[in-house]
């Protein structure tokens, strides 16, 4: 026993020494806390930033807007740069959680395409700088679908019984039904929502599964013919399997953005703006776009990209194809109605 006891004591001492050393060894550089989506950056970019500006970066990741929101709202976490999506930015602005950016410190903002500035979630563009954007559309397997895919209606076609994958995400799936019926994705009209509910219930027998991230594996393996997917994932999947093609439905769909913002609680706002500016440098923005495969709102990145990708409607849809594409708005309390509709669909 004595031997074991000493071993225990030894381990404790060792761990304490490691702990003390690791906290002592930290340098005096400013520490910038960055909170981004998982696997959503080329990590070499962070090293470059640290060397260039002599700022240490603490890089953390989250998996949903809601996770991130809870962390910031609780006041416990201390982040300087966040990457939320459109409707969350709108909500955080409403709740006075974001700091107004000083665009004099972000000269590279000039590279962002005009059409991605002053969007509804940040109308005066005072709080956010877009990072990535994309659409929601239909991914289909060319060997299983002969006809051209142009409309959401194909997801209601009896021919594809048990070959359709829908997203297990209420706003996306209700949004698809709303768009199919010709309504707005942010509607607050109860009749329209009830119609969408009926449509989804009617579609349910045809649906193989409501899926999340596993949609990728299923589509690559050829388990289903049609799936609702985010455009960035579509680009990924097309690289894995040449049978897959992405289509933008003519009724319109969802257009989404992830943008960089600084929370009000940040203690290093100037450094945070440096970081945002750095992320908009052409070389850096290109590295990220190339790693993530999502669409970049950056003018110069488009010039550096592979022309094949640039002509791919999944990656960079033409502007004229994006009429009737809605950006999600923060629904506030009305979200409860969407909750109820989705529960009723899932429980049916």
């Amino acid at each position, binding site marked *: 026993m004595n031997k074991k006891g000493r071993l225990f004591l030894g381990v404790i001492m060792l761990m304490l020494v490691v702990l003390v050393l690791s906290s002592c060894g930290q340098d005096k550089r400013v520490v910038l806390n960055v909170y981004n989506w998982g696997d959503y950056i080329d990590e070499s970019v962070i090293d470059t930033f640290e060397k260039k500006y002599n700022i240490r970066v603490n890089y953390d990741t989250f998996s949903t807007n809601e996770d991130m929101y809870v962390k910031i709202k609780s006041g416990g976490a201390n982040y300087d740069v966040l990457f939320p999506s459109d409707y969350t930015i709108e909500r955080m602005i409403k709740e006075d959680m974001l700091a107004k950016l000083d665009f004099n410190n972000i000269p590279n903002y000039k590279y962002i395409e005009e059409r991605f500035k002053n969007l509804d979630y940040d109308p005066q563009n005072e709080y956010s700088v877009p990072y990535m954007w994309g659409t929601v559309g239909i991914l289909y397997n060319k060997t299983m679908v002969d006809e051209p895919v142009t409309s959401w209606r194909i997801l209601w076609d009896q021919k594809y019984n048990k070959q359709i994958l829908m997203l297990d995400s209420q706003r996306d799936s209700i949004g698809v039904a709303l768009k199919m019926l010709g309504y707005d994705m942010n509607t607050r009209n109860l009749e329209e929502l009830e119609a969408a509910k009926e449509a989804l219930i009617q579609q349910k027998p045809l649906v193989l599964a409501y899926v999340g991230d596993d949609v990728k594996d299923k589509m690559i393996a050829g388990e289903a013919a049609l799936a609702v997917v985010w455009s960035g994932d579509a680009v*990924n999947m097309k690289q894995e399997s040449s049978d897959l093609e992405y289509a933008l439905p003519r009724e319109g769909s969802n257009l989404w953005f992830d943008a960089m913002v600084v929370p009000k609680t940040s203690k290093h706002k100037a450094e945070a703006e440096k970081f945002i500016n750095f992320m908009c440098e052409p070389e850096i923005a290109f590295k990220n776009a190339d790693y993530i495969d999502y669409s970049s709102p950056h003018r110069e990145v488009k010039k550096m990209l592979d022309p094949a990708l640039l002509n791919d409607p999944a990656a960079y849809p033409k502007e004229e194809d994006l009429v009737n594409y809605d950006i999600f708005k923060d629904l506030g309390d009305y979200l409860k109605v969407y909750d109820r509709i989705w529960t009723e669909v899932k429980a049916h």
Partner: protein
Amino acid sequence: MKRFLKKGYAALIYLFLYAPILILIVFSFNASKSRGTWAGFTFNWYLQLFKDRQIMKALSNTMIIAVLSAVIATVIGTAAAIGIHNMKRLKKTIVMNLTYIPVVNPDIVTGLSLMLLFVFSNFQLGFVSLLLAHITFNIPYVILSVMPKLKQLDKHLYEAALDLGATPFEAYRKVILPEIMPGVFTGLLLAFTLSVDDFVISFFTTGSGVSTLSIIIYSMARRGINPKINALSSLLFLTVLLLLIIVNLRMSGENKKKE
């Protein structure tokens, strides 16, 4: 026939237990990022794993937190168990029930209430709050694994040690502790595993800059779990396997010596 059924049943159980891990290991060598297709053999993910600063940092965080919280919780828990064991009946029942509650309490309640406590008391969320949270949820498990050993103990052992001239502290250290050591060790291992495993409580109690493996893996949900994680999990599994084999070999060696 009966023997065949028996063996088949056992084989089936082990198949269900180990098939997922086997598949995980196989796919850590898959050249494609997708889990749906096999695109050839590669060591690439292992190379990338060691270059990934974020994952490596999370791994070291996870291990440091797990070891520290397990050791500290074991010390506190063992002392608590000995104290509780010597209490009067009614008091003992009350305290033991208080010990059970955190164990049956859902993680989400523990996590949220710890976070609220830290935020309320203006305690900066980070490494220390994460460590404190892990120690907190580990302590009951240690108590619960030490208690049965104490119950098995002969009541008069401690008195006999005192009679033979040991001070109370010596009696505990040299007589009681060796007897309950298997329980203490189980508690330590349990605490370590639970700490590595935990996501919910860690998620709520960690602050900026301190992520554990479970948090990182969960945050990859949107873009798909990177195969680097498969490689890491395979390595962790092999490490545990190796440790188990070493422990077993040593134990059988010691047993032989005794015989």
